[in-house]
């Protein structure tokens, strides 16, 4: 009885109106979702938490990815959030754990942060290695790297690395943040 009543109510609208309504609703919901997603993918959002602003952001400000001769920058999400949709959503869902620890206050003081930073760094190095430094390669592509234009030390390291099938993060740890004490041994033990 109930269902037929509902059908009756819907039947008041023509198929065209329902379709149009669906499209409009779809645009609003999907657009809104993507808008919110894009909003959480900005440096401004990242450093709205003091944990990021007072620790990693300050260190990053002294590196070439923040400040350089051409003004081209790599902001937090450029390295820490995958670009393509599927991987981005997976990473965003994982980030809910970060919200949980924000609530717990796991790294809400400098001391706590320093205590945890090796573990946090290891997580990110593992992620980077497992995807063959995908986020680095969004900008830095071996294919287009002109070894002639590089410094002598870079040429040596890059050509050897290429031969050995190494990935960016194997050598470039601490490129945008400072390295924690004992990282070398920890990374080696973790196979990184």
């Amino acid at each position: 009885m109930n269902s037929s009543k509902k059908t009756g109510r819907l039947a008041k609208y023509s198929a065209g109106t329902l379709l149009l309504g669906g499209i409009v609703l779809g645009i609003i919901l999907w657009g809104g979702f993507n808008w919110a997603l894009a909003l959480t993918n900005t440096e401004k959002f990242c450093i709205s938490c003091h944990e990021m602003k007072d620790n990693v952001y300050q260190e990053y400000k002294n590196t070439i990815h923040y400040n350089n001769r051409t003004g081209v920058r790599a902001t937090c999400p450029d390295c820490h959030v995958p670009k393509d949709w599927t991987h981005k959503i997976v990473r965003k869902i994982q980030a809910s754990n970060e919200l949980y620890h924000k609530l717990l206050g796991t790294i809400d003081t400098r001391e706590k942060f320093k205590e945890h930073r090796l573990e946090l760094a290891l997580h990110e190095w593992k992620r980077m290695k497992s995807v063959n430094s995908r986020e680095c390669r969004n900008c830095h592509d071996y294919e287009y790297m002109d070894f002639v234009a590089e410094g002598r030390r870079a040429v040596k390291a890059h050509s050897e690395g290429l031969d050995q099938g190494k990935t960016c993060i194997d050598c470039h740890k601490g490129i945008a943040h400072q390295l924690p004490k004992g990282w070398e041994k920890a990374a080696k033990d973790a196979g990184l």
Partner: protein
Amino acid sequence: MKLKLISVMIVLISGLAGNASGIESLRGMKPLDGSSGKVEVKKVPKDGDLIQRNYVQQPPLIPHKIDGYQINLDFNKCMSCHSWSRYKETGATKISQTHFKDRDGVDLATVSARRYFCTQCHVPQANAKPLVENTFKPVEAISQ
């Protein structure tokens, strides 16, 4: 007290007299609170050949850029190439054995604290002309 006052007066007067006689400091005839003018920022080359030492026991100079290298309590970036465990692989000069002694000459297993901060003695070079003429020559018998 009187003596102090007189010496202060002498310093002040001689200072004024010095300026009047046209003695120029390295930053030129500029008032202390004024700017010394435009200074060109010197560029350190990315990479280069080893730089010859100018005298015996001069700390070797750094022939490459070291911008943003982390040298602090937690990590020493220089050591990722210049340490004994890495120098062969990287082709860098290895850190001297003298750096593993403390000030009492006791051998240590790690780099001595007083030698840890590399850039206290080792510095990169830029093409900067000396501010004043220098006629220094190293002792011949023990240079080269």
